[in-house]
């Protein structure tokens, strides 16, 4: 670990190594924005190619979409509260909000898988049309990110339980927090340009 520790800063920013890791993660998120940008580009080009298959109006249920949106938005909020508690050096508050965040995230993944199963039973699979291929790839990539985030965060929680709040565990918690908020940012655009826009069109 780097020697020049600045205890005036929050735990996650105290060492040079931590500051570099956090900056590095922001650069990774920049690449993630572009990854999702390419998937949005594919969807934007193909979103009206139904090939005789179901259309968004046949498939999308606005109630289920709103439940997913609220679950993910609330989990982003509770994740922010977890980091807030971490900065007050309140380990139990951090863990409580962190676990609530993951439960809400798991609820989101459950809703999304249920939605996909429902679509497949209506004959809307990845192979049905270009619209559905691009839809499942975009939504599936986002859902995979959320699922992996739950696994990643669980491992960070185990580290906090074993080692307590140190500059290293605080940095890891802060970074998974950034990742989690980012997934909600992506969802805002999915909600707007995939669900709402296609239901209007």
């Amino acid at each position, binding site marked *: 670990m780097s020697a020049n520790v600045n205890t005036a800063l*929050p735990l996650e920013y105290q060492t040079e190594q931590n500051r570099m890791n956090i*900056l590095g993660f922001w650069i990774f*998120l920049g690449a993630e924005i572009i990854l999702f940008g390419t998937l949005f580009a594919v969807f934007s080009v193909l979103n009206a190619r139904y090939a005789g298959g179901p259309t968004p109006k046949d498939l999308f249920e606005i109630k289920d979409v709103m439940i997913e949106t609220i679950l993910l938005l609330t989990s*982003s909020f509770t994740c*922010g509260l977890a980091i807030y508690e971490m900065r*007050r050096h309140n380990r139990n508050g951090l863990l409580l909000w962190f676990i609530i965040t993951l439960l809400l995230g798991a609820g989101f993944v459950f809703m999304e898988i249920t939605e996909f199963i429902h679509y497949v039973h209506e004959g809307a699979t990845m192979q049905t049309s270009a619209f559905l291929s691009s839809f499942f790839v975009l939504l599936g990539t986002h859902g995979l990110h959320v699922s992996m985030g739950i696994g990643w965060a669980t491992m960070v929680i185990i580290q906090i339980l074993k080692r307590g709040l140190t500059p290293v565990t605080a940095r890891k918690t802060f970074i998974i927090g950034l990742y989690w908020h980012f997934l909600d*940012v992506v969802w805002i655009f999915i909600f707007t340009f995939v669900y709402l826009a296609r239901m209007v*069109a």
Partner: protein
Amino acid sequence: MAKNTKGFPLTHVLGFIMSLVLTFAALGVALKTNLSFKTIIWIIGSLAVIQAALQLYMFMHMNEGEDGKSQIINVVYGFFIAFVTVAGSIWVMSFGM
């Protein structure tokens, strides 16, 4: 950066309430009005950008830390490339249809 370490997490609560308002505003504009498709896309697209910026500032504290400026430039650049990719793809694929 360490300013909100005591008391009530005001910026988080405000960010959450504003995100909810923006989400339901987009829902209302999209499904409860009779505006043209183009108008609706512009309105809900703008609401999405505002909400994304809210998340980045109020939840992710994008501008904090000694590298705050680099972080902002990096994210703005990422969104610029994403926008060019999406808008450029729509534009180039609109020919010959």
